[in-house]
């Protein structure tokens, strides 16, 4: 049985690895397609039907480019940079629960193998650790390039990631307090009923987390480390060929992982409304094992639908909001998000004292009221003088 568990686990790890790469590959295609559609264009549609072979063509192009290492660059660190970025990006999907469990019958007993590479009780902490390591890839690469623009980009990335990690962690603490566990599976299972999804109990925390996730992924509106208008290419200015490809790829993997992370933390992971009824119906009609496995598969599909929505959301925001200025970024991070998330923790804690889950709506209501009154009190902007 141990061997079977090992085999199934190995299979799950391989599948997750493959799916991560596949989704990252097609995220590049989706990014271009979504960008095009949002801008009233059609996007790539020449390579294969609907341009579906475009990522393969892109990868082929990347592989055949000259792999250039600048003469003054620190050679080993220059190579290490993209490797680190890729490694940390791929590692973080290990603890995400992609589904309930696969049920196997063995010697008359049923074994449930969770749909997850590894189930550890500090999953959230693990992801945080790996994600903070991710900034090393950018730092090392930017520094090793021996280029001032690269270094500036790397420094920006480092300070931005460190700043936003604080707010990210603090907004999560409220969830950890409610669940009482650092295990991602426990957090997902806590949200079994629809109105107990953390997005409903922690609306403010969700918005803070989402904002910080954008900053952690270096996506617009927080893509200052690689902003073309100021820094040429940012930390990957000097990179070419597949090393550049690795950096870009790591970004898309990070996007996938944070989408998965957001969906499992705030949107109930593989849960969906009336899940228990579906599960009971399937096990009733198809038998204990087949029914359970099919119910798991449905949950996984739902989970991936949530992930895809968030990947789309990442792209949607990218083509909507312009980039922040660096001081605005720092102001938003330190002066707004961190105090708000601390307030969120305090209010959640006070609510838990009296066993009320929805107390953070209080902050939201207060903020909406403040916003409305401030709008009402604001001096009416003068109507633009009509020029003849």
């Amino acid at each position, binding site marked *: 049985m141990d061997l079977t568990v090992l085999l199934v686990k190995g299979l799950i790890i391989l599948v997750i690895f493959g799916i991560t790469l596949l989704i990252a590959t097609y995220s590049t295609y989706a990014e271009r397609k979504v960008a095009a559609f*949002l801008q*009233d264009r*059609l996007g790539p549609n020449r390579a294969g039907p609907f341009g579906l072979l475009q990522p393969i063509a892109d990868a082929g192009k990347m592989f055949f480019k000259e792999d250039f290492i600048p003469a003054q660059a620190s050679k080993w660190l220059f190579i290490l940079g993209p490797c680190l970025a890729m490694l940390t990006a791929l590692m973080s999907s290990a603890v995400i629960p992609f589904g309930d469990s696969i049920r196997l019958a063995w010697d008359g007993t049923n074994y449930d193998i969770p749909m997850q590479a590894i189930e550890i009780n500090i999953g959230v902490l693990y992801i945080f650790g790996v994600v903070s390591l991710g900034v090393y890839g950018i730092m090392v690469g930017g520094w090793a390039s021996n280029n001032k623009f690269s270094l500036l980009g790397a420094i920006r990335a480092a300070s931005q990631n460190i700043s936003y990690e604080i707010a990210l962690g603090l907004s999560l603490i409220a969830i950890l307090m409610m669940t009482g566990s650092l295990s991602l599976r426990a957090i997902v299972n806590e949200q079994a009923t629809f109105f107990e999804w953390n997005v409903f109990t922690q609306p403010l925390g969700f918005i803070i987390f989402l904002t910080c996730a954008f900053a952690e992924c270096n996506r617009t509106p927080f893509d200052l480390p690689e902003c073309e208008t100021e820094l040429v290419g940012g930390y990957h200015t000097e990179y070419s060929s597949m090393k550049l490809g690795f950096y870009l790829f790591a970004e898309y993997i990070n996007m996938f992982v944070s989408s998965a992370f957001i969906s499992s933390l705030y949107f109930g992971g593989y849960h969906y409304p009336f899940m228990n009824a579906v599960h009971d119906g399937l096990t009733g009609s198809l038998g204990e094992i087949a029914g359970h496995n099919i119910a798991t598969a449905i949950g996984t599909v739902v989970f991936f639908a949530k992930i895809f929505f968030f990947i789309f959301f990442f792209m949607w925001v990218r083509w*909507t909001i312009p980039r922040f200025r660096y001081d605005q970024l720092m102001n938003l991070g330190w002066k707004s998000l961190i105090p708000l998330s601390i307030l969120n923790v305090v209010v959640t804690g006070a609510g838990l004292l009296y066993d009320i889950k929805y107390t953070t709506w209080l902050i939201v209501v207060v903020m909406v009221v403040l*916003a409305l009154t*401030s*709008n009402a009190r604001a001096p009416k902007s003068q109507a633009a003088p009509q020029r003849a």
Partner: protein
Amino acid sequence: MQLTNRSKQVSNKEMTMAEKMYLPSIVQGLAITIKHFFMKKPTIQYPEVKRYLGPVFRGHHVLKRDEQGRERCTACGLCAVACPAEAISMVAAERKKGEENLYREEKYAAVYEINMLRCIFCGLCEEACPKQAVYLRHDRMVPVFLERDDIVYGKDKLVERLDDRYVRMNSEVKATPTEPSLTKAAT
């Protein structure tokens, strides 16, 4: 001058609390972009779909034949003189006995070449021609060439084929002010 009603006066007044939260305007922006996501795209898929470029478009050159199928060109060289890019060259020859059904005039162009890399499709040759022999088709473009040998178009590619006669359909529109509009009968 006011072009649209959407322009807003820029002011540096302090932002209100609602504006400082960014979220309302972000939601507004997202709504606008998602609306565009579902809009009909104005793109025309070029090689598969070709749009009508109008009756005065200047495309592929054609050396016209008259209604009896004789070449109209008399190799006077006015087109070559008029050509600002010096793309046209020709060699004249005298019509022999028995060739009256091939060439309309007593002198004709034995060689007529247009260098398509030099041509700027200005249509001055069309204007200069006294015999209404050279035209720039409105319905066909010069195709992309892949070989250097394909650049210079000789008579084999320029002279109008009898099974593919060129008519400028809209008789109302004159391609150039000097050109008498062609009708089907005039070919």
